[in-house]
């Protein structure tokens, strides 16, 4: 018998082992591919690959070794990369111009920032980007070959190259620093300032450079065309690299002054990498007897290594309360009006280039939705004069802590977030004859863990998967999932789709489940106006509630939503207007839910929203 068991067990364990091996191999392979992309990078200290590229809108060719003896900062960008705008602007101001004025770093090694454009399509947009940032020396790396050689991952991608030991043949260039994302000019300066120390401590490099015309002369000795003013500067044969830089700086200064009129805010932002956002928005949802308003004001400041946000909001609930007379002989109609102030603080910090720690803390005071206010009024009218009844004081606090790993910066991340919340709610009441008033739970503790996965699947598809487990006092574990897929159908058409499901299983009370699907099809009419149509459907099988006499749980519900959204997007401001009808349809209310028949009546809602966003 034991032998038979052993024979049976053997294949099973082998199978399990094989499955584990296959799974491990799959994960290993896939992560290997993903990780391999990252680890193909050339590392600091490694020899730098040589390159020769043409300048932006010019036939002129530039070799890396034209800057032999100097320091070169490569700033890989594309016009569509939003963070690249502040990065390139800051690099031009606080690296290029800074070292031009100082005649190089502390060891007098000249510094050149090269803006490496990796996007070949829509040159007009690239031109706008260059004008905004003031980038003075732009090269075409349109197929991303050089970006790839340096192991680029994400944008902006920065590389500092040390050419102080380079030979005339191009050997000796070293990578001093490379990084996806911008850590600020202070970090770049610290790296630049440390270069060329031993070699040039006795002889100022600029003097050496000035005496070494042949090795440091840019390849274009005849003429260099300014990138944004189309002014041709004739550089005499005897000009050195430094002279060339100074000329460039001078030219840049001229064009920057001209630019400042067309793009004042970008100029104003120079010298700082902090971007502030102020976003007020209001949403109104109304039906014949319920009027809901959400007023919000969000403020965010984003920096190179940390973000901070504060959101304050005030919700308004107005209800024409109408008891269902057939099941509620005590109740009377009344008008209810409640406010709910709330706040949310958020903070996130880069622990390293790929890992971000985030935390939030928030709180509110008041009824969270119209249903809880309606139920509270019902119980108040029924039991307020009876011993054991206490007026509700709903309020709550919440905290969360998350860790995000951007395994492909800008393209793929996994984020795990743990949350904890405490809610004092308006409890339900029940009274059985000859028994004291029963007061339901009025305090809930919830813990949840969520996992988010975002990924760029193809050049046109971006996905976000969100999973969450929630455990709340007196409830079963609830699992929810939401998957979003954004599809760039054409140049000016984007389809955003979303689907979700929720399951809460209870052996005694049954299973609550819901699902929803929706889409938003957006068309950009031009660079600033966007119009979209949206539709959404939701369905559930009714809320779980354990009660003796009266059940306040939501009956099975279906909702339909459709409408249009108009969005305007300017340089620093944008706004959005939404107008949508929203329909809620409940199943027939059962006898034990009858007192709430008017609450759970079918309604046709109107939804209107206005959002404004200002960046400064």
């Amino acid at each position: 018998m034991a032998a038979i068991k052993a024979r049976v067990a053997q294949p099973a364990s082998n199978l399990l082992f094989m499955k584990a091996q296959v799974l491990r191999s799959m994960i290993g392979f896939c992560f290997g591919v993903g990780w391999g992309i990252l680890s193909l990078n050339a590392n600091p200290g490694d020899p730098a690959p040589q390159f020769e590229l043409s300048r932006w809108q010019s036939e002129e060719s530039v070799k890396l070794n034209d800057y032999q003896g100097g320091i070169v900062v490569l700033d890989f960008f594309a016009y569509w990369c939003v963070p690249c705008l502040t990065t390139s602007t800051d690099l031009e101001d606080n690296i290029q111009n800074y070292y031009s004025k100082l005649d190089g770093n502390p060891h007098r090694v000249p510094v050149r920032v090269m803006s490496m454009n990796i996007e070949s399509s829509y040159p007009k947009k690239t031109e706008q980007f260059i004008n905004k940032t003031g980038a003075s020396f732009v090269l075409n790396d349109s197929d991303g070959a050089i970006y790839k050689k340096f192991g680029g991952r994400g944008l902006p991608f920065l590389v500092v190259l040390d050419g102080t030991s380079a030979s005339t043949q191009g050997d000796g260039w070293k990578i001093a620093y490379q990084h996806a994302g911008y850590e600020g000019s202070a970090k770049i300066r610290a790296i630049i300032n440390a270069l060329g120390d031993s070699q040039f401590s006795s002889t100022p490099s600029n003097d050496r450079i000035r005496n070494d015309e042949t090795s440091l002369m840019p390849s274009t000795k005849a003429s260099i065309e300014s990138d944004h003013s189309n002014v041709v500067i004739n550089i005499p044969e005897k000009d050195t690299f430094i002279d060339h830089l100074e000329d460039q700086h001078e030219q840049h200064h001229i064009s920057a002054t001209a630019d400042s009129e067309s793009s004042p805010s970008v100029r104003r932002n120079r010298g700082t990498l902090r971007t502030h956002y102020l976003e007020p928005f209001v949403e109104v949802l109304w039906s014949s007897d319920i009027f809901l308003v959400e007023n919000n004001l969000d403020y965010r400041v984003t920096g190179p290594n940390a973000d901070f946000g504060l959101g304050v909001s005030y919700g308004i609930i107005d209800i024409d309360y109408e008891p269902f007379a057939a099941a509620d002989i005590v109740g009377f109609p009344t008008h209810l009006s409640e406010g709910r102030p709330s706040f949310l603080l958020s903070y996130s910090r880069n622990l390293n280039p790929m890992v971000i720690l985030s935390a939030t803390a928030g709180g509110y005071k008041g009824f969270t939705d119209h249903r809880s206010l309606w139920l509270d009024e019902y119980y108040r009218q029924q039991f307020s004069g009876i011993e054991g009844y206490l007026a509700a004081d709903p309020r709550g606090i919440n905290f969360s802590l998350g860790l995000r790993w951007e395994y492909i910066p800008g393209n793929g991340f996994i984020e795990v977030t743990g949350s904890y919340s405490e809610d004092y709610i308006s409890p339900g009441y029940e009274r059985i004859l000859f028994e004291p008033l029963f007061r339901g739970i009025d305090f809930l503790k919830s813990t949840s863990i969520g996992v988010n996965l975002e990924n760029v699947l193809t050049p046109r598809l971006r996905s976000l998967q969100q999973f969450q487990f929630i455990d709340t006092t007196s409830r079963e574990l609830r699992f929810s999932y939401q998957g979003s897929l954004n599809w760039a159908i054409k140049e000016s058409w984007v389809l955003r789709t979303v689907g979700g499901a929720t399951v809460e299983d209870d052996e005694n009370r049954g299973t609550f489940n819901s699902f929803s699907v929706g889409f938003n099809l957006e068309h950009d009419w031009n660079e600033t106006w966007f119009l979209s149509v949206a539709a959404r459907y939701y369905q559930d099988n009714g809320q779980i509630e354990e009660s003796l006499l009266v059940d306040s749980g939501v009956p099975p519900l279906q909702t339909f939503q459709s409408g249009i959204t108009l969005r305007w997007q300017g340089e620093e401001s944008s706004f959005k207007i939404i107008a949508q009808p929203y329909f809620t349809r409940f199943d027939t209310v059962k006898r034990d839910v009858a007192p709430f028949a008017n609450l759970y009546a079918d309604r046709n809602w109107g939804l209107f929203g206005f959002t404004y966003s200002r960046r400064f």
Partner: protein
Amino acid sequence: MFVILLTSSHIYKMRIRNVGAFILLVWVLIAASGCTHVKVTEQRLVSKPNMLFSDSPVFNYQSRFITQIEPGSAADGGNQGTGCTACQ
């Protein structure tokens, strides 16, 4: 905290099955994500503002009221997460 949560006595078989399925699903998706890599020169369209999953309300396409009306759509925990405004 979650270890305590998951090892507490009120865990049923269903819950364990859900957790197992969830972990497997997450790992498969992580692995699948690791397999995908789109070259940066091909990311122009997926980097458009309306292709991103942004926190900004201007690019948020879901109404805040949805979570107040639909018990299964609440993403937060606590009161709304369970839809349990008057638990008994």
